[in-house]
């Protein structure tokens, strides 16, 4: 009792000295009697562990055996868990920020081009003697100029990285001049696009990494892809690796493969879609990557049914039941090579085949206050006035979201003349690029078609006849 009183006094003193804010809710006597009670209480419980002379001596430390925590109590410490999860999130975010800044796309790409050169044991790099030309030759195209990209910073890097994946072009409308007997009838594939996060999946050296469009890591996991897991019997040699184009479908935690860039060290960049799909189907099956998840294969992989874009194929893709949530249709030109950035893959959405509204358009604000699309060259959509820029705090390089107003878009001579845009706000940070020109056009088309659902379906049917070299879609081929 006396000891605890002293302790109270001492603490009280400390509080007075160190914590002037404290309002003394109980006076020292009350506090010391409460403390005495607590000490006796504690003493009762710990009588076995706590030699008497430790009680009431103020500071006690040392070799008193720790009181064993009754293991029926307090199983969960959520606070610590929350702390740790926060730290994990922060570390991950920092890592992503750094990766983006470093433009780690370069390593994915160099992985792809340099791996076949030699055994990893011999990959003893001769820093001093790497000739400039070797790097030149490693570049797959001007678009993949790693050296140029590496001088970029921040948002520019994210944009560059994102362009390494095929970006689908929005299918606008069916030009009238299509004829039924178009010889290009059979040059398209169609598939029902799964809703979800588009990502690159790279398997290499016993691990698989998926990265989103903005370069951030989505998952880091073992998979049955060649070199995708550290298995006992080991699949494939050390320098094998895969790069695939996937959509991660959140609700069933499944990766739906929509294209492939590299398989087991073999580059498919220069192969046609037809070949890539054939390869993908046979190889995926071979690798057992579509089997149920297991210890060595954390996520389910699934191929998507691809149809020839004839009437029945289109119908199947458009209405057919699929195990995933549909988000539009994707059209591929069978003869196209894998190209980065905007390319000849087309996407179609309406509410029958996608639950996601396509009512807004993302445009990029340039230095000269002009709003442009992600096309190359960019298509000018409008211009913000200085007042607006000041008030809304937007800056050049920002991606902004707009709705298309009732005024729609006006065209003169096939060129955009005027767009009625309503500013909604900045786009999501995960966005790395503006929409392409065809998106707002699609929005208008879709809106005008709402009057008649029949009409919409007929437009879909028409879509099968689009000549892929038609000028409306060839922004990339110029």
């Amino acid at each position, binding site marked *: 009792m006396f000891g605890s009183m002293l302790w109270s006094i001492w603490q009280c003193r400390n509080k007075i000295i160190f914590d002037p804010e404290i309002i003394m809710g109980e006076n020292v006597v009350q506090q010391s009697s409460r403390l005495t009670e607590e000490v006796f209480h504690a003493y009762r419980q710990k009588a076995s*562990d706590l030699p008497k002379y430790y009680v009431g001596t103020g500071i006690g430390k040392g070799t008193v055996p720790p009181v064993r925590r009754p293991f029926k109590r307090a199983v969960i410490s959520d606070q610590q868990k929350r702390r740790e999860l926060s730290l994990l999130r922060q570390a991950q975010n920092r890592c992503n920020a750094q990766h983006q800044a470093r433009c780690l796309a370069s390593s994915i790409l160099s992985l792809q081009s340099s791996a076949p050169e030699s055994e990893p044991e011999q990959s003893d790099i001769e820093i001093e003697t790497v000739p400039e030309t070797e790097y030149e030759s490693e570049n797959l195209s001007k678009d993949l100029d790693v050296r140029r990209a590496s001088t970029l910073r921040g948002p520019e890097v994210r944009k560059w990285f994102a362009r390494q994946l095929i970006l689908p072009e929005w299918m606008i409308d069916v030009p009238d001049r299509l004829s039924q007997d178009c010889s290009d009838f059979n040059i398209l594939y169609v598939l029902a696009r799964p809703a979800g996060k588009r990502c690159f999946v790279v398997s290499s050296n016993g691990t698989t990494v998926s990265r989103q469009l903005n370069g951030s890591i989505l998952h880091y996991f073992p998979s049955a892809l060649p070199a995708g897991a550290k298995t006992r019997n080991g699949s494939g040699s050390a320098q094998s690796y895969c790069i695939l184009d996937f959509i991660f479908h959140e609700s069933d935690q499944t990766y739906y493969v929509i294209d492939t860039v590299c398989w087991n060290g073999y580059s498919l960049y220069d192969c046609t879609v037809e070949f890539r799909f054939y390869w993908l189907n046979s190889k995926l099956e071979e690798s057992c990557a579509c089997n149920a998840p297991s210890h060595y294969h954390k996520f389910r992989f699934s191929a998507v049914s691809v149809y020839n874009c004839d009437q029945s194929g289109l119908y199947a893709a458009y209405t057919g039941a699929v195990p995933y949530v549909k988000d539009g249709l994707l059209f591929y030109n069978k003869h196209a090579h894998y190209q980065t950035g905007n390319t000849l893959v087309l996407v179609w959405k309406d509410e029958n085949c996608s639950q996601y509204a396509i009512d807004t358009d993302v445009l990029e604000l340039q230095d000269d206050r002009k709003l442009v699309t992600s096309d190359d060259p960019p298509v000018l959509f409008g211009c913000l006035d200085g007042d607006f820029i000041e008030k809304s705090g937007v800056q050049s390089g920002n991606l902004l979201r707009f709705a298309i107003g009732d005024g729609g878009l006006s065209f003169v001579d096939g060129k955009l003349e005027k767009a009625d845009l309503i500013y909604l706000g900045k786009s999501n940070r995960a966005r790395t690029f503006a929409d392409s020109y065809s998106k707002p056009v699609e929005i208008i088309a879709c809106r005008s078609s709402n009057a008649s659902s029949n009409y919409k379906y007929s437009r879909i049917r028409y879509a099968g006849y689009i000549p892929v070299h038609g000028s409306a879609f060839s922004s990339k081929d110029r």
Partner: protein
Amino acid sequence: MEVTQVLLNAQSIDGTTRKNAEESLKQFQEQNLPGFLLSLSGELANEEKPVETRKLAGLILKNALDAKEQHRKFELVQRWLFLDDNAKSQIKACLLKTISSPVSDARSTASQVIAKVAGIELPQKQWLELIGSLLSNVHQSPAHVKQATFETLGYLCEDVSPDVIDQDQVNKILTAVVQGMSASEGNIDVRLAATRALNNALGFALANFNNDRERDYLMRVVCEATQSSDMRIRQAAFECLVSISSTYYEKLASYIQDIFNVTAKAVREDDESVALQAIEFWSSICDEEIDILEEYEGVNGDSDITCFYFIKQALPALVPMLLELLLKQEENQDQDEGAWNIAMAGGTCLGLVARTVGDDIAPLVVPFIEENITKPDWRQREAATYAFGSILDGPSPEKLIPLVNVALNYMLSALIKDPNSHVKDTTAWTLGRIFEFLHGSAIGLPIITQENCQQIVIVLRQSMKDTPNVAEKACGALYFLTQGYKEVGPSSPLVPFFQEIVQSLLTVTHREDAGESRLRTAAYETLNEVVRCSTDETSPLVLQLVPVIMMELHNTLEGQKLSYDEREKQSELHGLLCGCLQVMIQKLGSSEPTKHVFMQYAEQIMGLFLRVFACKSATVHEEAMLAIGALAYATGPDFAKYMPEFYKYLEMGLQNFEEYQVCAVTVGVVGDICRALEDKIAPYCDGIMTQLLKNLSSNQLHRSVKPPIFSCFGDIALAVGEYFEKYLMWAMSALQRAAELSTHVAGDDELTEYTNSLRNGILEAYSGIFQGFKSSSKTQLLIPYAPHILQFLDGIYMEKDMDDVVMKTAIGVLGDVADTLGSHAGSLIQQSVSCKDFLNECLSSEDLMIKESAEWAKLAIARAISA
């Protein structure tokens, strides 16, 4: 100054008197420290003085020599060492004199003060005569002096590290102590003090335990003491055995049979306080063997300690003994938070035994369960359930699942129907353990099916209406049930029950008695887990939960002027609610569609957090801070609008050295905000950087906060780019100093781990700074720092003790330097001692992250060299 009166006043009931007295003591100390300490020691030694003032004098003296906080302790030690020698020897003389005082409180207080002085002086090779003079006391002095002397030796062994005292003195201390314990010592109090002193001195006896003869002797003395007629001595002797079991495990083989016999006797027959120590001996042996066996598994028999399998050998006798104990429950032990009795100790030990031996325990326990689980006496039913719950961690799932499949239905019905609250409490706990260890995607054969899942949910929801202690365990069971379905996704059988589960948990949080048995906390924690494990199907419901929790938080802020207790309660509730919001923000923010909807609440939530902050004047609420970090991350650049109001709390958090967790959390939040605001954080950087630099140079701040502060430099630099220029010099010099400290470190695992976290922080800072300056016109500012950074990389590469995380960050820094400085770095890298080896090592690393960073570094270096 009349110290006695002041000391009496300092204990006065009257606040003003007390305050004045404390003030004058403080002044005295400030004006004349030696005089102050002298008069305190004089007061303590003076037999004329009242015992209260003597004790308080001793206590103040002790607090002038030692403190809990490391930095304060260090100051006090220095202060004592530089004190006038004359004063010191007078004080010490007073202390030694007090040991002989007839007043036991004075003796005891003096013992502790002597130990503190010894703790400071002996390592400095001062007061070397102390031990000799203490030992001379134990021969011819009166009993109370001997007793106080042993007590002093005990404290001394606690406060002084073993390497300070040479073996010769250790031998003398042990001899004296053992003599004091022997039957030839007539006084019981002396023998007790000697036995307790031995416990503290065991750490010094390594050499003696290595010597067979001396060890035999010490063990015999301890075992004999367990048979003493005095209960306190028996207890102290078992405490010695517990210490020996952990310190000298590998020396116990030849005594274990005898020890089993004495512990079994004590457990069955002796007073509870003695029996508890006897049980503790076996729990402690389990701890040792679990550690050793884990190490065996980890490094393929590379452990340097042999496992003697004492538990396995003792199993047939040990388990029945422990099972017997389970039947000795106390009434109402479940309502008492801190209860600790022989039945609980027995269950705890049984659980540890199960973890030690695995499958072997099942056949010994199952018959006991079968025999007792249906008995009319609640003690038998409870003991059977407790036994079952205790062995669920350890044996293989293959062994346990058949048992669980049989028991599960019985348990579910007992949880509702058993008339006894103890049984229900233990049953709910056992269900929780079943779900924790035998349910989840890692377990091949599921024990929970679509069919019984519904029943489990119904039973647990029902049980959540039971008494607080039972309801708390039911929440815990639900927590693990939910967690087990985390990986399952949309097919989780819990999806259909989501809404009712959440509703039940909310109802629990509103119970009048939710403050008992930490029920409210358990309910919120379970709710958090439910949110964490929610799927796309249930996310609309989580979204609906957001305004509900916001309203709860809002309601707690409505209160008027609160008393101290009420404020404590409010703060606790704030913690729970902010924690819950944090979990929801993190969950909903991680997927685009839910984030989009969630953001409509962001502004109001932020408003609530700011009001939570405003409730505390001196510090910030850690949970609210954590939640704000998550909110900033989800909000992105728009978070800038909250900064003007939020900034002061951010600063306050960074200044909280005392609760270093708060400081650490705040440092993390600065990083979140940097990534959210990017260059918009610039206006706040002056304040933040100043505070962070102050924190780094403080020796009061817990060291674990320093590595994240360095990482935070990197976050800031990356966010603001070349604007970082104004801090560059300061940051770089702090980094440079820390880098030097973290290269040449040899120490134990803990130190290596800390060193690596420090290195990682430093390297992350370098990365952020170099990346931040990239493609600015001011990269040349970084050139002067490059040689040191490369030297640092060389240094840690040479040390060969970096972990994978550091390796990845380090090779990345090499790339960043090359990338940002280009040709300026090229020649430096070519001259570097180990860059090339380091890079090659990383390129061939198994770790994909390291390899990836290395590939990047390779490209950047090649460019820098060819440029």
